[in-house]
């Protein structure tokens, strides 16, 4: 049954196929996608490296259990649309996850090849088939069940909301997605920059859902424009899914953080990604002018990496990442760190800002930092940074972006008194059924788990959809006392 002509030994002799990339010197000043995608030859060669393990370890690393071995085998057989369909059995956003999943700690991190050789390029292949499918557009829309007469409201249009909408609409339910911003896609449109995830890919997914009958209503802030109780009692929604993400920015709380020139990563990235401030004045929204100036971004995750690489693309002279541990502890995807360094991003590790400094006009002029060293491992298992007394130093910068992570936005929770939250303000939901403390209301994605990943949000959205489908059918609501 295997279409792979090579015996296993020879497969391991093939080097991992490299992802064609835009040259660092050019891409550091444009917003076009860095990775250009494998060619057909590259993809089929890479697919041939797969050992087609009887018990594929890779699958255990994928949060949604994509049938990796099987889709790879379909690539080897030249059936790219079949491969895409195989992935879609478990993953409805493959063009996106193929690009942004932290593969090195998930599927590829578990691939057996990685023990001795380079792991299989699973993410690159997933992206390849998803792009192939989109560009060849031969797959029609899935079958839609006859109308069930039930209405579901989904709050938030990030990966959790979108994937839940896709399942529910296929089952014949009337689905409305309410989004606070004017564009649909959540972090996929306002957070992750186009050079990693072109917006056309997100739009393609959204348009497919709209054609399937999902009603998207932008410009509705649930909790303000309408409440969950009003949706259920007055507008006749039978179930509600809260998928509002973890969008509340954290700040350092150090002197000078309010100076013009200091912003959160959310603000900086939203201005550029959602509002196109990089195209000012052709677009009206401005962004701090960093052309020829020095910029520091504080943090070490994907968001920090996205912000510092965005600053570079806006023309910064020096784009600096300040992180309090070392590169090895950075939570960002390894590919992002590698790309950033190629683009000339400087990493200033083992340093922690203690104050932002101002010039005579009251604009940001620099950051004062303390040097750190690594001490004992903390609760996260990572060695915690400890300040070195008296080691203060200053870095002159005109703009600083704070990318320290995000928390739960309380808008929905505070307008829905019977929706239980955990001590950090996230919505309490049963991990399996994603039921909340309120009858008919479910919650999924970052608003339950705290900031996580696209694939986990997608998986949670689909679990919630399944539970909602069951609830709509049976009308049974087991009051989970455990919730809360």
């Amino acid at each position, binding site marked *: 049954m295997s279409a792979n002509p090579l015996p296993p030994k020879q497969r391991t002799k093939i080097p991992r196929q490299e992802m064609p990339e835009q040259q660092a010197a050019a891409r550091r000043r444009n917003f076009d996608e860095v990775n250009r995608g494998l060619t057909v030859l590259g993809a089929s060669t890479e697919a041939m490296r797969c050992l087609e393990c009887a018990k594929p370890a890779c699958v255990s690393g994928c949060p949604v259990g994509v049938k990796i071995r099987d889709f790879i085998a379909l690539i080897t057989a030249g059936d790219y649309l079949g491969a895409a369909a195989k992935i879609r059995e478990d993953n409805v956003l493959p063009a996106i996850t193929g690009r942004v999943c932290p593969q090195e700690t998930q599927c590829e991190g578990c691939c057996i090849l990685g023990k001795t050789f380079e792991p299989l390029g699973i993410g690159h292949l997933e992206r390849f088939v998803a792009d192939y499918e989109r560009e060849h557009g031969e797959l029609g829309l899935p079958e839609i069940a006859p109308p069930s007469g039930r209405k579901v409201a989904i709050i938030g249009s990030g990966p959790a909301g979108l994937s839940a909408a896709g399942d529910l609409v296929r089952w014949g339910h009337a689905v409305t997605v309410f989004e606070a911003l004017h564009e649909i896609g959540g972090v996929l449109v306002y957070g992750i920059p186009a050079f990693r995830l072109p917006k056309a890919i997100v739009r393609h997914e959204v348009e497919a859902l709209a054609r399937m009958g999902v009603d998207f209503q932008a410009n509705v802030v649930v909790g303000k424009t309408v409440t969950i109780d009003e949706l259920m009692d007055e507008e006749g929604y039978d179930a509600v899914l809260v998928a509002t993400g973890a969008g509340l920015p954290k700040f350092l709380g150090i002197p000078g953080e*309010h100076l013009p020139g200091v912003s959160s990563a959310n603000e900086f990235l939203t201005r550029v990604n959602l509002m196109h401030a990089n195209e000012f004045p052709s677009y009206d929204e401005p962004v*701090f002018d960093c052309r020829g100036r020095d910029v520091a971004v504080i943090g070490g995750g994907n968001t920090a990496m996205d912000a510092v690489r965005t600053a570079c693309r806006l023309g910064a002279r020096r784009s600096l990442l300040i992180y309090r541990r070392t590169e090895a502890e950075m939570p960002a995807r390894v590919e992002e760190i590698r790309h950033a360094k190629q683009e000339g991003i400087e990493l200033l590790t083992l340093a922690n800002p203690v104050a932002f400094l101002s010039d005579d006009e009251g604009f940001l002029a620099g950051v004062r930092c303390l040097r750190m060293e690594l001490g004992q491992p903390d609760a996260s298992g990572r060695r915690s940074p400890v300040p070195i007394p008296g080691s203060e130093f200053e870095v002159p910068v005109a703009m600083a972006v704070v990318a320290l992570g995000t928390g739960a936005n309380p808008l929905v929770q505070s307008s829905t008194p019977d929706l239980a939250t955990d001590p950090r303000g996230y919505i309490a939901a049963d991990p399996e059924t994603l039921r909340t403390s309120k009858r008919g209301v479910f919650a999924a994605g970052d608003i339950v788990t705290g900031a996580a990943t696209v694939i986990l949000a997608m998986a949670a959205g689909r679990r919630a959809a399944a539970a909602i489908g069951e609830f709509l059918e049976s009308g049974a609501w087991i009051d989970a006392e455990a919730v809360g």
Partner: protein
Amino acid sequence: MFPILEAEFLAPEIKRFVIEAPRVARKRRAGQFVIVRLHERGERIPLTIADGDPERGTITLIVQGVGKTTKLMNLLEAGDAILDLVGPLGSPSDVRRYGTVVVIGGGVGTAIAWPTARAMKQAGNRVVGIVGARSRQLVLLEPEMRAICDELEIVTDDGSSGRQGVVIDPLCERIMRGDRIDLVLAIGPVRMMQAVAEMTRPSGIRTIVSLNSLMVDGTGMCGGCRVSTRDGTRFACVDGPEFDAHAVDFDTLARRNRTYRDSEAAALEAFRADPNSALAQVRHSCRLEPTHPPEEAASR
């Protein structure tokens, strides 16, 4: 798409719009605002909801043309539409029966203060209005204010209407005289609000201001609207826009509002050179296929 039903100038550069936005009209309360985006390439700007008619499904906005987006908006007429409009945002004013409430409006601040002033009157307060403007032509909502105020004082910089001076002059006199004042609501330029705060601080008169920080999303997501207060950092779009004036760090606010001054000046200059193509952009965006289904879908 949010159709404009009425549009008329109240004063030079100050225009009143009645806009169809049924969901917002149903929910809005005094002190809340919306964020609008005029066209596909537009920026998002906050505007206070001056009035609303839940039956008709409309809200009223009063806009002062100060930069590119507000001047462009003021070129729109009845029959035009606004691409995106979201709200009502922010916390409503804390309307209670305080006793005597002095409402101070500077410039377009009068339009922002008026809905709250009216709600204060309806709540049984004695309302004293102090309306300031540069000159007679720019005095806003005088008949509307007169209708709800037990006393109204007009102050102009040049004395062309009411008394000559600035809005804190009559406030100062009342405080010196020992008039009873239970609450001051002051809305206008940052420096005006700061001056009012300083004036009422010694006597500890409770004073509320509405802060005009820069905003993007209006939901607490970007932190761009953050203000520094005695109680720590607050987000004007969700925790405000009204704050205890004596807790606000106005200097920081004034500085933050200058963040994009060079870009704003450049945008205004380009707009002035060719306002018609900007207007064409709005009219084009608002004729495109609605990416945002109209609101009646809500009532399906």
